């Protein structure tokens, strides 16, 4: 399977994602944001970091870069797109995903491991997880507080477009285990066609038990099979 990781000035998880993809046997290429051509890809990853120093709004400038025009074209023709952290913010700014990512409720940059519940696994990114699985991934962000209008929120809930929600170790989902204030504890969302996933937690950081855990592997494996 061919994957492409987009690199912006300020991306800092690009090589982590590339390492994860290569480890799991993707044929991966890195593409600089100024390029106008995308290599043939089954999966495009927009990695985490601080593209353009988060100027104006996180992801706003990256969303207007050359390569994003191609990413939008690929997305509209059904290519799988995964946006992690700043990648999620960029996808929101392009309009490929709806809603907004506000500053964390406590106004602090949060970097810690959190528990997530797999809410919907009926999609290409999560099918190797079981429904209600509890996984442990890392978050590291300042603007991860997901917000959307009521009708869109209902659409997300009704159409199984929320793969992950923040929870506690036992899987209980409530405000006490909501790290950033996201509406309904949402940690990631899909578009209607389910070929675009944006998520704040970092699955690429959880692929090796030597340094963390292997809970992120399920996501990359799901895409492969």
């Amino acid at each position, binding site marked *: 399977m061919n994957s492409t990781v987009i690199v912006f000035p300020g991306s800092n998880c690009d090589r982590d994602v590339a390492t994860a993809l290569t480890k799991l046997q993707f044929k991966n290429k890195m593409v600089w944001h100024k390029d106008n051509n995308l290599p043939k890809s089954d999966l495009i990853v927009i990695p985490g970091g601080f593209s353009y120093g988060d100027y*104006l*709004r996180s992801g*706003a400038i990256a969303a*207007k870069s050359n390569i994003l025009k191609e990413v939008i074209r690929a997305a509209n023709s059904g290519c799988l797109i995964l946006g992690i952290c700043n990648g999620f913010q960029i996808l929101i*700014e392009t309009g490929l995903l*709806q*809603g*907004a990512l*506000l*500053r964390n*409720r*406590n*106004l602090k940059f949060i970097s810690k491991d959190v528990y997530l519940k797999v809410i919907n696994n009926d999609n290409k990114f999560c099918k190797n997880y079981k429904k209600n699985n509890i996984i442990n991934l890392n978050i590291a962000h300042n603007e991860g507080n997901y*917000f*959307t*209008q009521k009708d869109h929120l209902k659409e997300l809930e009704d159409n199984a477009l929320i793969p992950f929600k923040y929870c506690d170790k036992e899987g209980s989902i409530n405000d006490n285990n909501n790290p950033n*204030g996201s509406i309904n504890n949402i940690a990631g969302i899909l578009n209607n066609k389910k070929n675009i996933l944006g998520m704040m937690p970092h699955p690429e950081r959880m692929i090796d038990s030597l340094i963390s855990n292997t809970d992120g592997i399920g996501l990359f494996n799901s895409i492969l099979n």
Partner: protein
Amino acid sequence: MKLAVIITLKKDVLDPQGKVIEQTLQNMGINSLKNLRQGKYIEIELDELDEKKAHSTVENMCKKLLVNLIIEEYKIKKI
């Protein structure tokens, strides 16, 4: 021609930064303070003499890049 854009979060979007500023000012003894919202201020100089045209150019900038219309609102002023 110079124009200014003032961008603030919509009323129903929580503005935690504004709240902290508000509380600090209240703690400093400014009791008449009722409500405070913080935002962004952008000055734009255009090579354009027609005020209507300049306004519509900046409006376009706001919609396409400067403002996230889901959570923010904006005002354009000639300066």
